C-alpha cells in the first residue's frame, strides 16, 4: 500500500471531521440543554444545503454570502418547530419525544423531495470550488480547508460562549437543573427555544458547506442524523467538549475504510453503521 495514499486518507479524514463536529455539536446542544434527542437534526443540515443551492441557482447568490440568509432561516425554522411541537412534549415520555422528532424528520425530508426532486443537486461554476493545493503528493481542496477551519472556529466559539456569555451560562444552568434555573429567575422555555434554534442554525451552516463540497440529495439527512448521534454517543451524551475528538475518530475511520478496503467507497457507510451498532451493544454490555 502506497504510504502517500494512507496519508491522503488521514488528511481527508481530519478535514471531514470539522463538518461532522459542527453538525454533531448542534445535536449535542439539543440533547444536553433540552434533553431532546432530535431525529430531525440531519434534516436541518439537508435544508441548509438545499436553501444554499436554491439561492445560488435562482438568485445567483454565492454560497459564502448565502450563509447570511441560510443561518437566520434555519434559526427561525428551529424556533418555529420548537414553539409549535417540541415545547408540548417536554414532559412526555422519552419515546414520544423521539417519535415526534422522527415525524418532523419525515415531513422535512419529503417536503424537500417534493420541492427539489430526488436527484443530487450540484452548485456548478464557482471558481474556488476547484482550487486545490498539493504538498508532498497530498492534495487538499480549498473548500474543505476553509470548511474545516470555519467548523472548528464555530465549535470552539460555541464552547466559549457556553462558559463566557450570559446566555451560555443560562443554558448550562438550565441543562443542570431545570427547576433550580427557573427558581433563580431564568426563563427556561426561552432558553430552550434559543438552544433548539441555535442547534438548527449550526446544522444549517454545515449544510451550506456540504452543498459546495458534495452534490447532496434530499435523503442525506437521516445518514447525518445517525452520524451525529454516534459522535455524540462516543463523546458522551450531551457532552460538547468531547465532540471534536469523537468526530475525528469517526471521520478518520470512514476515510481509511474508503481508501484501504477494496470497493470501500460503497462499503464505508455499512462499516460506519456496523460501528454504531457494535458500539451501542458493547456499551450496553459493559455498563452492567
Amino acid at each position, binding site marked *: 500500500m502506497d504510504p502517500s495514499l494512507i496519508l491522503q486518507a488521514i488528511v481527508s479524514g481530519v478535514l471531514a471531521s470539522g463538518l461532522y463536529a459542527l453538525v454533531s455539536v448542534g445535536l449535542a446542544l439539543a440533547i444536553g440543554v433540552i434533553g431532546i434527542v432530535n431525529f430531525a437534526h440531519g434534516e436541518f443540515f439537508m435544508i441548509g444545503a438545499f436553501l444554499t443551492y436554491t439561492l445560488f441557482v435562482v438568485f445567483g447568490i454565492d454560497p459564502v454570502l448565502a450563509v447570511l440568509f441560510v443561518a437566520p432561516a434555519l434559526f427561525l425554522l428551529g424556533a418555529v418547530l420548537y414553539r409549535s411541537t417540541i415545547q408540548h412534549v417536554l414532559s412526555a415520555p422519552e419515546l414520544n419525544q423521539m417519535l415526534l422528532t422522527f*415525524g418532523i424528520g419525515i415531513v422535512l425530508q*419529503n417536503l424537500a423531495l417534493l420541492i427539489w426532486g430526488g436527484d443530487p443537486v450540484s452548485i456548478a461554476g464557482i471558481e474556488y470550488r476547484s482550487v486545490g493545493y498539493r504538498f508532498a503528493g497530498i492534495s487538499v481542496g480549498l473548500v474543505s480547508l476553509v470548511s474545516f477551519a470555519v467548523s472548528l472556529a464555530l465549535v470552539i466559539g460555541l464552547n466559549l460562549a457556553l462558559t463566557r456569555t450570559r446566555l451560555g451560562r443560562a443554558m448550562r444552568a438550565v441543562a443542570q437543573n431545570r427547576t433550580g434555573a427557573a427558581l433563580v429567575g431564568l426563563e427556561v422555555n426561552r432558553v430552550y427555544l434559543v438552544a433548539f434554534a441555535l442547534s438548527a442554525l449550526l446544522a444549517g451552516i454545515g449544510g451550506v458547506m456540504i452543498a459546495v463540497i458534495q452534490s447532496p440529495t434530499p435523503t442525506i439527512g437521516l445518514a447525518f442524523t*445517525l452520524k451525529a448521534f454516534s459522535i455524540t454517543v462516543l463523546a458522551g451524551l450531551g457532552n460538547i467538549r468531547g465532540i471534536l475528538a469523537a468526530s475525528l475518530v469517526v471521520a478518520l475511520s470512514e476515510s481509511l475504510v474508503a481508501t484501504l478496503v477494496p470497493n470501500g467507497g460503497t462499503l464505508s457507510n455499512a462499516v460506519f*453503521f456496523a460501528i454504531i451498532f457494535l458500539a451501542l451493544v458493547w456499551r450496553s454490555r459493559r455498563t452492567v
Partner: protein
Amino acid sequence: MKLLRDLLPIAAFALFLWFLPDLLRAFAGRASVSYLSLVTNGVGLAILALSWDILARTGQLSLAHAAFYGTGAYVTAIMARHLDLPLWIGIPAGGLVAVILALGVGAVTLRLRGIYFAIATLAFTEVLKSVFRHLPTPFAGGAAGINVEPLFRPVFDAATMERWEIAFFRNEGYFLLYALLLIITILLSLITRRSRLRQAFTAIRTNEEVAAIMGVHPARMKLLAFALSSFAVGMLGAVHAHRVGSVVPEGSFSVETTVLALVTPIFGGLYTTLGPIVGAGMLAGIEETLKRNLADGYLIGYGVVLILSILFLPKGLVGTTRAWWRRRQSKSMDTAEEGSA
C-alpha cells in the same frame, strides 16, 4: 374462555375477507382490479403495523422492522432462484429465517433501551441492506436485485372470462394470502393480549427491574416478542416479493417500511389489536390519495399523522375512543346513582 369470545369476531372478519373479492367483482366490475390491490395494500399495512406493535408491547421501539421484512423477501427470492422446490415453501421459510435473525438481533440488543435501542436497530437494518447488496451477484443479485416468479398464473379462458379478469384472479390470490397472514398475525397478537404474557409484557415496558423482581424473565419475554413480531412480517415480505416480481436491496430494506410499521399503530392505538388494524384501514386510504397526487414524497402524510398523533392523540384512535367511552359510562353510572339516592 376469553380467547373463545374473541374467536367469533375473528371468524366473522375472516369470512368477510374471504368474500370481499367476489363482492368487489360483482359490484365494481372492471374497476375491482384496482380496488382489490388497494385493499391488499391496506391488509399488508395492517400486518406490518400489528406485528410491529407486538414487540412494542415490551417497550422496545424497533426501527428494524424493514430488516425482517427484507430478509423474508430475499429468502424466498433466493430459494426460488436456486432451489427446485415449490414456490410457496419460500413463504414460511422467509418467516422462519426472519425469526432466527430477530432472535439474534434481540439477543445482542437486550440491554439497550429507548433511543439507544432505536438507533441500534436502525443501524442494523442499514448494515443488512448493505450485506445483501454486496453478496455475490450470482447468488443474491447485487444492487440490481433478483426477479421473482409470480405465485399465481391464472389461465385465460375466452369462453368464460373477460380480459381484465386475469388481473383480477391474480390479485385475488395475493389478497387471500395477505388476508391469511393478517388472521395469523391477529391470532399471535391476541395470544399476547389474552394470556399472562400481557401482564409480563406490560410489566417489562413499565419497569424492567421491578418486573424481574416479580418473577418475569425480561430476556426470555423480549425474545419471544421479537420472534412473534418478526414471523408474520417475514412472510409478508416474501409474499410481497412474489406480488411485485422482484427484490432489490434499497426497496426491500427501505426505511419507508419501518416508518409505515410504526406510524400506523401509534395513530390507531398502541398495544392493542384493533388499533393497528383500524389505523391501517384509514392510512391506506390516505396513502392512496396522496400517491395519486404527489409523485415522490407521499410519506409526508405519514410524518404529519405521526406528529399530530403524538401531540393530540397520544393514545391513538382506539385508546382515545375507549377512554371517552369509559368516561361516558362512568358518568352515566354516576347520574344513575344520584338519581336513586
